[in-house]
C-alpha cells in the first residue's frame, strides 16, 4: 500500500511532466492548426497569361519539376525516388489530374500544403521543403497554383514509398514535427524585405542541401547554410557565407548562379542539376539579389564533424606515388602549377570548394569520374574535367587529392587507396 503511494507520488509528477513537455512540443510545431486542411473557400485565382508566366518562372526558381519528374520521364508527374536514412521516398504527381494529381485541390489546400506541409493525404515528408515555402507570399503561391493547374493531366501513379518503421507511418511525422519543426522560424515579413533572402530561404530552398543536418535528418538551427553532406547523394554542399564566397564579387556570384561555372569553380553533380533545371532561368535582378544576400550570411562556427568515406577506414593501406609529381603530370596543364587555373577555361583549385571543404568526397568523385558543367544559355559550351579512373590507380588518386587539398585548400585529408576504392561507381541521383 505504502509502496504504491510512493510509486504514485513519483509517477504522477513524471506523467504530468511528460504531458507538459508533449503539450509544449505539440504547441511549438503549431498545435492542431496545421492538421486542419482547409475546405475550398471558393476563392478564385487569376490565370491570365501574365500570371501563368509568373507561375512558370517561380516554379523554375523553386526547381519544383526537378523533384517531381523522373529522369527522361514526362515532367511533373512525380515518381523520382529519394534515398533517405529511412528508405526511399517518391515524389508525387503534381499534374492537373483530379484523382492522381492535384487537379481537385483548391488554392486554399495548395497554400496550406506549401506552408504547413500537410495535405489531404496527411502530413508530408520533410523532403518536401514546406518549412522554406512557408515564407512565400500569397501572390506567388497563387501564381504557382495557377501554373500547375495549367499543366496537362496525367494519371501516373508514382511508386509507393519504401520506408522503415516508424518512418513508414505518417503519424510518426507528427512526432518528428514536434521534435524538429519550428514553423515560421523566419517571419515572412522579414524575409520579404530582402528579395535575396526571400529567394534563398523561400523558393530556392538552398538550405535543404547547404545547411548542416542533425539527428533525424533535421536542419540544425545553428547550421544554417553551414554546409554538409547531402543526404542520399554522396556529395558535399559547401557552406554559403561571407567567408566562403569572398573570392566572388556580387556580379561574379550572380553570374555563377546562372551559368554554373566561373573562374573559381564549376558546379557538378546535384548543383549542376540545379543550374540546368532552375537557376539558369533566374532573371538578372533576382540573381544579383541572391548573390548579395549570400555574400552577407555570417559564417557559423565550424562544427567538429569528422567526414569519412569509409565507416571505419583502414589506415594501413597508404597512398601510391608522390602527390606533387602526379599533380604536375596530370593536372597542372589545365589548373596551373600553383592551382591558379586559366581564366575563362579551367577553374582555379586554390581556395576551390573541393580543396577547402572539410569533406573530401567531392574532390575524390571529380578526380575519379570528371564531368561536364551544365550546358546552359549562360555557358553554352562548357569545359569538362576528364575522368582519371582509368589512368591513375586508387592509391595515386588518393595521393594527388591529398596534395591538392593540402596545398590549395589547407585541408589535411588523409585519404587512402581504400577510401578511393569505396567511391568507385558513378552516382547519378
Amino acid at each position, binding site marked *: 500500500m505504502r509502496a504504491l503511494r510512493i510509486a504514485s507520488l513519483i509517477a504522477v509528477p513524471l506523467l504530468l511532466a511528460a504531458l507538459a513537455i508533449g503539450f509544449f512540443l505539440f504547441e511549438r510545431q503549431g498545435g492542431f492548426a496545421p492538421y486542419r486542411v482547409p475546405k475550398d473557400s471558393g476563392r478564385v485565382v487569376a490565370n491570365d497569361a501574365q500570371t501563368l508566366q509568373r507561375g512558370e518562372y517561380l516554379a523554375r526558381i523553386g526547381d519544383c519539376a526537378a523533384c517531381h519528374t523522373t*529522369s527522361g520521364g514526362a515532367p511533373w508527374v512525380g515518381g523520382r525516388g529519394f534515398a533517405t536514412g529511412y528508405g526511399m521516398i517518391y515524389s508525387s504527381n503534381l499534374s492537373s489530374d483530379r484523382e492522381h494529381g492535384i487537379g481537385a485541390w483548391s488554392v486554399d489546400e495548395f497554400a496550406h500544403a506549401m506552408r504547413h506541409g500537410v495535405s489531404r493525404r496527411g502530413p508530408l515528408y520533410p523532403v518536401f521543403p514546406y518549412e522554406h515555402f512557408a515564407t512565400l507570399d500569397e501572390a506567388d503561391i497563387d501564381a504557382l497554383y495557377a501554373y500547375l493547374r495549367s499543366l496537362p493531366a496525367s494519371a501516373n501513379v508514382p511508386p509507393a514509398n519504401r520506408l522503415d518503421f516508424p518512418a513508414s507511418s505518417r503519424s510518426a511525422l507528427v512526432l518528428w514535427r514536434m521534435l524538429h519543426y519550428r514553423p515560421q522560424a523566419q517571419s515572412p515579413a522579414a524575409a520579404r524585405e530582402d528579395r535575396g533572402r526571400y529567394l534563398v530561404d523561400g523558393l530556392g530552398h538552398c538550405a535543404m542541401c547547404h545547411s548542416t543536418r542533425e539527428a533525424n535528418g533535421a536542419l540544425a538551427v545553428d547550421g544554417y547554410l553551414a554546409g554538409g553532406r547531402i543526404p542520399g547523394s554522396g556529395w558535399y554542399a559547401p557552406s554559403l557565407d561571407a567567408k566562403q564566397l569572398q573570392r566572388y564579387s556580387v556580379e561574379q556570384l550572380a553570374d555563377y548562379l546562372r551559368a554554373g561555372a566561373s573562374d573559381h569553380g564549376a558546379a557538378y553533380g546535384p548543383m549542376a542539376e540545379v*543550374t540546368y533545371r532552375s537557376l539558369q532561368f533566374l532573371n538578372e535582378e533576382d540573381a544579383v539579389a541572391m548573390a548579395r544576400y549570400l555574400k552577407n550570411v555570417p559564417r557559423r562556427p565550424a562544427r567538429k564533424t569528422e567526414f569519412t568515406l569509409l565507416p571505419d577506414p583502414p589506415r594501413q593501406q597508404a597512398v601510391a606515388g608522390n602527390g606533387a609529381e602526379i599533380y604536375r603530370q596530370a593536372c597542372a596543364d589545365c589548373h596551373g602549377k600553383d592551382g591558379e587555373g586559366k581564366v575563362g577555361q579551367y577553374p582555379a583549385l586554390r581556395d576551390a570548394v573541393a580543396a577547402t571543404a572539410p569533406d573530401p568526397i567531392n574532390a575524390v568523385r571529380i578526380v575519379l569520374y570528371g*564531368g561536364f558543367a551544365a550546358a546552359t544559355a549562360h555557358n553554352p*559550351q*562548357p569545359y*569538362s574535367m*576528364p575522368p582519371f579512373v582509368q589512368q591513375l590507380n586508387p592509391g595515386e588518386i588518393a595521393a594527388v587529392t591529398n596534395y591538392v587539398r593540402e596545398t590549395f585548400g589547407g585541408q589535411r585529408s588523409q585519404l587512402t587507396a581504400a577510401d578511393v576504392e569505396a567511391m568507385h561507381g558513378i552516382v547519378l541521383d
Partner: protein
Amino acid sequence: MLRRLALLVCLLTLAPCVPAQEDGTFGTRLAACAACHGKRGEGVQGAEYYPHLAGKPAGYLFEQLKGFRDGRRVSTQMAWYVRFADGAFLQQIADYYASLPPRTRGADTGAAQLTEERRRVAQNLVEHGDPAHDVPACSACHGANLAGLEPGVPALLGLPVDYVIAQFGAWREGVRNGAPPDCMHDVAGKIPADDIRAIAVYLSQQSNVDGVRPSPPGSFVPPRACGSLPHAQEAK
C-alpha cells in the same frame, strides 16, 4: 537554316565539316570525352570497349547523345557527362566529331581469330544478310564499304569486338532504343548469339585505310524503315 545549308554543302563536297561556331577551342572543352574516345575521336590506344567517333555522321552522333541524356540508351558513364546538356551543345559535339577524319585502322584488340568457316558465315551475313530469316545485310544500310550513310547510319569499321556485341545485347534487351520502328532491335533479335560474335570479330578487323567518309545522303536507299533515320523512313 544557314547552318544546315553549310552542312549540306560540306557533305556534298566531302570536305571536313567544321562547325561554324568552332573558334579553335571547342575540342579542348571535350577533355572528358577524349579520355575514352581519343583526343580527335579516333579512339584510344588499346581500347577494348569504347568506340571511335571521328567521321561518323553528325545526325547519328546527335541521336546517341540525346539517347544517353534522355535514357533511351543506357550507359551510366555517358549519362553522367551529358545529362545536363541542352540540345544545342550536344549538336555541336556531334558536328565536331563528325567533322574529324575517320579512324583508318582496325580495332586494337581483336578477340581470337575466326576459323575460316566462321569467317565465311560472318562475311556472308555482313554482305548478303540472311533473307530466309528476314535479316538484311549490314552493307545494305551501312554501305557496301561499311563506311556509313549520312546523316544517320554509322560506319562499322574497326569497332572493338566487345562494344559491338554489347550493342546487339542492348538492342535485344531494350537498353538501347531507337525511335520506332526500331530497326536494329528487329534485326538483333533475329541473329543467333554465335553469329553476333562472329560478325563483331569480323567487323573489328576491317579497317578504313583510305579514311572514306560516310556516303552522302540519298546515295543509296536502305531497305528498312528506321525511326531515328527519317531518310530511310521516307524511302520506305
